[in-house]
């Protein structure tokens, strides 16, 4: 019976947390960026990204606030009507980002909606989010446009 104890000890020692080599733990986190990319409309009526060098990526909400404030001094324009209080409420569900914008549906052109959607998805993707995320924009007035789940043609 004495010979059995080393075996038992070996078995017990075989358990516990064993040191390992270097294993893959998955995708590295992301989200560091020199600034935030906003989308405006150029002279030909197409969406153009504009890097706003804020020194950090920031949140979707911050990006949309900047977008609502307009393109600033450049040859790009916005097709979103100016608002007095640029505050956007952002709710993120697993497969859709819901935006509560301080705009009525007629204050934004389809290209203006594209600006909002592309800016939102840009920040989302740069933060490490999925590229197939949908965006739902809820306007201040009740409209069928509020229920549409949208994607950005520039970010696929």
């Amino acid at each position, binding site marked *: *019976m004495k010979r*059995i104890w080393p*075996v*038992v000890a070996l*078995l*017990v020692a*075989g*358990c*516990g*947390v*064993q*040191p*390992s*080599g*270097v*294993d*893959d*733990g*998955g*995708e*590295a*986190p*992301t*989200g*560091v*960026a*020199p*600034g935030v*990319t906003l989308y405006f409309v150029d002279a030909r009526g197409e969406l153009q*990204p504009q890097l706003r060098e804020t*020194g*950090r*990526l*920031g*949140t979707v909400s911050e990006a949309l606030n900047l977008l609502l404030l307009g393109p600033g001094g450049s040859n790009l324009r916005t097709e979103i009507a100016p608002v007095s209080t640029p505050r956007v409420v952002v709710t993120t569900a697993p497969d859709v980002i819901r935006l509560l914008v301080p705009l009525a549906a007629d204050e934004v052109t389809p290209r203006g909606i594209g600006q909002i959607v592309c800016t939102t998805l*840009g*920040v989302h*993707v*740069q*933060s*490490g989010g999925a*590229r197939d995320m949908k965006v739902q924009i809820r306007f201040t007035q009740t409209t069928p446009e509020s229920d549409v789940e949208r994607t950005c043609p*520039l*970010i696929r």
Partner: protein
Amino acid sequence: MSPRGLRPRLLVAFVLVTVLGAAAVAWSGAGSASTALVTSAQQRLTETVAAQIAAVAPELASPPDQSALERLRAAVGRNTLVVYQDLRSADGSVSALVTDALRSAVRDQKRLMAQRITAEGTPWLLLGTPVMTTALDGARTPSGIEVYAARDLTAVEQEIDDMTGSAILTAALALPLAVVLALLAARSVLRPVRDLRDTARRLAAGDLDARSQPQGADELADLTVTINEMARSVQTSMAAMRRMQADARRFAADVSHELRTPLSTLTAVVEVLAMTADGMEPDARESAELAITETRRLVRLVEDLMEVSRFDAGTAQSRMEEVDVTRAVHDCLRARDWLGVAGLVAPGAVSARLDRRRLDVIVANLVGNALRHGAPPVRVDVSASGEQVRVAVTDNGPGLPEHVLPHVFDRFYKADAARSRTPGSGLGLAIALENARLHGGTLTAENIDGGGARFVLLLPRDAEVR
């Protein structure tokens, strides 16, 4: 260490099987469970750290300054090291723990890497990851920020140890059960074996009726049946042999008895013939003398045969009395006129309780045998020691050949085929031996140094009738 009995052997075997089985089950069970525990803990910690970094990364200044690193480190928690080019922010002992392998893997793979190490007895999970910058087209490039975090796995190890402990405890609890089972199994095997042993002992002791009852239908039951068959067959053979022996003895007894009556008549006739022999012609007288001698020999033979038959039938009677052995031996020699050829050496009177007639028969047979086959002078030593009387008859002849010695007391044994017609009946020594046994004594034959045979009779001084 190696047990001899079946019971300890079975016990040890059962216990070993149990211990090994339980150990194997515990080992594989605890092994897979501990792997699962470690894997899930590692995954949880990895996801947590990745989520913590991802949550704070968009808020970090780019390029980061020291305060950005501090902020990131604080977000990830204790034991975290954040590096960006020459800047670093560390907390806890993580700097000493991070391995070069992990650093190079983080730089090469540009993915979150994990490694388990044990430092000073404490198990650690090391996590290392670059913080990436993702372009709008999805391209990922390292931002230059690297985060290393160490997470203590002591709790996981404690959990595994507890699990292993309980597995060992379960195995230990199974041991008494194994012992009980082993004892039961040993008993079920050992009981038939013990029965068989008892039966075999009884058989060996002569009880041929002994049998074991076979139980069940296993190999032991087969063995029991076989042993019973063997006992039955031995019993049958023994009975047949005894019957044949008894038949043979009865036949010898009957023959000798039937011969006695005609022999008495013949003896009477021969006596008459002997008285008239002197007046015969020399040829006729020689024939008559031959007839007389042979008739006397025949009478002697029949008497010896009847004596042997009585011994065989167990009907030999003895009359015990106080006897002076020296005197009895002397009388025996004198009665046969042997005092001239046989010297008696005795310390004086040696008293013993025995059958005087049978002592006379023994001594006469021994001395007669010595005179016939050995050579005079014959010496008869009588001595007493403690509870025994010793009578030794030594002759001066060439001694007994080695091959004769074991058979010297056999009936009708002729040492020399050429000398088949000796005056003796061939039963003298056998009768002497039976008489010695009847007294509870022994009679042995041996050769003494310098030639000569010696027959030693040992009789108890206070013989019980056998």
